[in-house]
């Protein structure tokens, strides 16, 4: 097992709700007691419905969301950071090591800057190069790695299709030579024929540049094909985590099973699995007691309503938080 690059321990991200019907001082726990190890060199997938806290977790690790409780440690070969306490120069150093690729390649690029200037901006802001020539060399190098046509560096983003724009976003994120990249729904806005191309590019960049990815996605089939580890989130908590092949072959948490069975199969005659989740994800401002999933869980019992399940280790290197996962596992 390779050493973790990112260690998250009992992380909480809480937002005050102000004076509400819930009474003064109520908080929305976007993340509640989340622990997670992201191994060095992994392509780590984070899945869950909207409102599950995937994006918040990604942002908290980048110190772009307020960390209320718990700890995040980041250790690459050169430095060790206690992310929650970063400020000043150390925070600047962290920013070049940990970067973010956004979802919407149309909104993420300034229409008034050339592609060259967009990619060069992080270098200039962080003061990583000493001359324009050096900056240009770095820009050309990363553009080539992202399979961008160097002729295009002088153009503006409007001239490009969604797939090409996403390459520009990727080049911009990677130009400061980070070791950790959060890709938040980075292929969700792309057509399938382009999506495959960007996924392949991310995988080859990971190998060539020795990167660790946190890949946030609502699309389980994309995660299944790209990631090596997966964590499943529900209402601000991780409910299950496992190596990708294990998670898809033997999902242990009832929520993971429900998510998998909801993916529409390409086979029109695929047996319609009975596991339909009813209702919507509850509001994180007022989460259910006990196990948060019990209101929608097809196998919930009385104990689930009162007692919060603990994370248990399972064979194959995964963890699951369910009182009854052993008994409810399908044969």
């Amino acid at each position, binding site marked *: 097992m390779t050493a973790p690059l990112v260690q998250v321990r009992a992380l909480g991200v809480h937002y005050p709700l102000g004076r509400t019907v819930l009474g003064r001082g109520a908080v929305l726990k976007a993340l509640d007691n989340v622990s997670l190890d992201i191994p060095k060199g992994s392509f780590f997938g984070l899945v869950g419905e909207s409102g599950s806290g995937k994006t918040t977790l990604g942002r908290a690790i980048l110190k772009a969301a307020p960390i209320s409780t718990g700890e995040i440690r980041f250790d690459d070969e050169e430095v060790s950071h206690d992310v929650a306490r970063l400020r000043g120069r150390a925070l600047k150093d962290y920013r070049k090591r940990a970067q973010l690729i956004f979802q919407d390649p149309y909104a993420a690029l300034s229409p008034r800057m050339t592609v060259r200037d967009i990619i060069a901006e992080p270098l200039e802001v962080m003061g990583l190069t000493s001359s324009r020539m050096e900056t240009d060399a770095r820009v050309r190098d990363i553009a080539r790695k992202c399979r961008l046509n160097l002729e295009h560096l002088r153009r503006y983003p409007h001239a490009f*299709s969604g797939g090409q724009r996403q390459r520009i976003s990727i080049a911009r994120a990677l130009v400061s030579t980070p070791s950790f990249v959060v890709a938040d729904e980075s292929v969700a806005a792309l057509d399938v024929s*382009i999506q*495959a191309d960007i996924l392949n590019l991310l995988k080859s960049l990971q190998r060539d540049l020795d990167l660790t990815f946190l890949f946030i996605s609502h699309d389980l*089939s994309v995660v299944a094909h790209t990631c090596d580890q997966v964590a499943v989130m529900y209402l601000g908590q991780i409910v299950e985590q496992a190596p990708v092949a294990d998670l898809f072959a033997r999902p242990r948490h009832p929520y993971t099973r429900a998510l998998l069975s909801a*993916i529409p199969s390409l086979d029109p005659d695929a047996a319609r699995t009975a596991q339909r989740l009813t209702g919507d994800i509850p509001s994180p401002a007022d989460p259910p007691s006990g196990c948060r999933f019990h209101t929608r869980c097809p196998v919930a019992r009385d104990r689930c309503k009162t007692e919060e399940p603990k994370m248990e280790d399972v064979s194959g290197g995964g963890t699951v938080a369910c009182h009854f996962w052993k008994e409810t596992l399908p044969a």
Partner: protein
Amino acid sequence: MTLLSVRDLTVQFQTDEGVVTAVDGVSFDLAAGEILGLVGESGSGKSVTAKSLMQLNGGNAIYGGPGKITLSPRGQDPVDVLGLRRERHMGVIRGGAISMIFQEPMASFAPALTVGQQMVEQLRIHTDLSRRAARDLSVEMLTRVGISDAVKRFDQYVFEFSGGMRQRAMIAMALSTKPALLIADEPTTALDVTIQAQVIDLMKNLVAEFGMGILFITHDLGVIAQTADRVAVMYLGKLVETGAVRDVLRHPAHPYTRGLLAALPQLDDLTAPLIPIPGDIPGPLDRPAGCVFHTRCAQAVKGICGMTVPSVTQVTATHHASCFALEVPA
């Protein structure tokens, strides 16, 4: 019984940069009680095709010469849709024989009126129900699509609904006028998979119950496989392949359909490589000559595919595709 017949539909738009062809010679039929899936990537013309059925494409749309759309609801005279010239005649199709549901239900409801007010308003326009009867029907429809406590929900605003509930309310509203044809434009794309599965189940049950035809537009082949009876694949304004959903997904005949399937991550083989379709979709102003797909097609033959437009070839009696590779050499 054929409910909808589209023949040689061509739609162009007059823009500042010139005339843009969005839909080019598209023909298809849709029967009552049938779900036809219309698949394609962005820019393929699927939404323009759907909007043409209600003439909703805006003032700069030009409907080409021989194109004809005929809607034949049961027990009514056939309507020549493109022949309707005046706005006041459009009520026959818009909200009358045809209802449409959209991708983003938040944007389709007015935020300052209650859901109930909006449901009653459209029923009062399209039917001769009294206010009270329209209210009763609306509450009944909300219950039918699985919204609990419909009497209370009727008086709420759309921001008080969750995403899945909004889409259900929109479906309830669209079906309350008992349309002969329902157009669903990416109705599940903005939803989580768990909610998507609920909405798909709901739509299939409603077809069985009401017997209307559905034109289901999506970019997601998995959703098509689970909902549609037949599928039509569009690329750059052309219908490249049509057929029963089993035939097209199991034995795709057109290189573009095969490309789409190869690019799609599938759960039965996690190690299978994802093969992108090379190149980008050409811009609307530089449509390729000949077969529109030849610039990205691995099987394109020089001197043929870039010169002439392939004709529709029969693969089986119910499966057609437009590709030279399928045409029997003369």
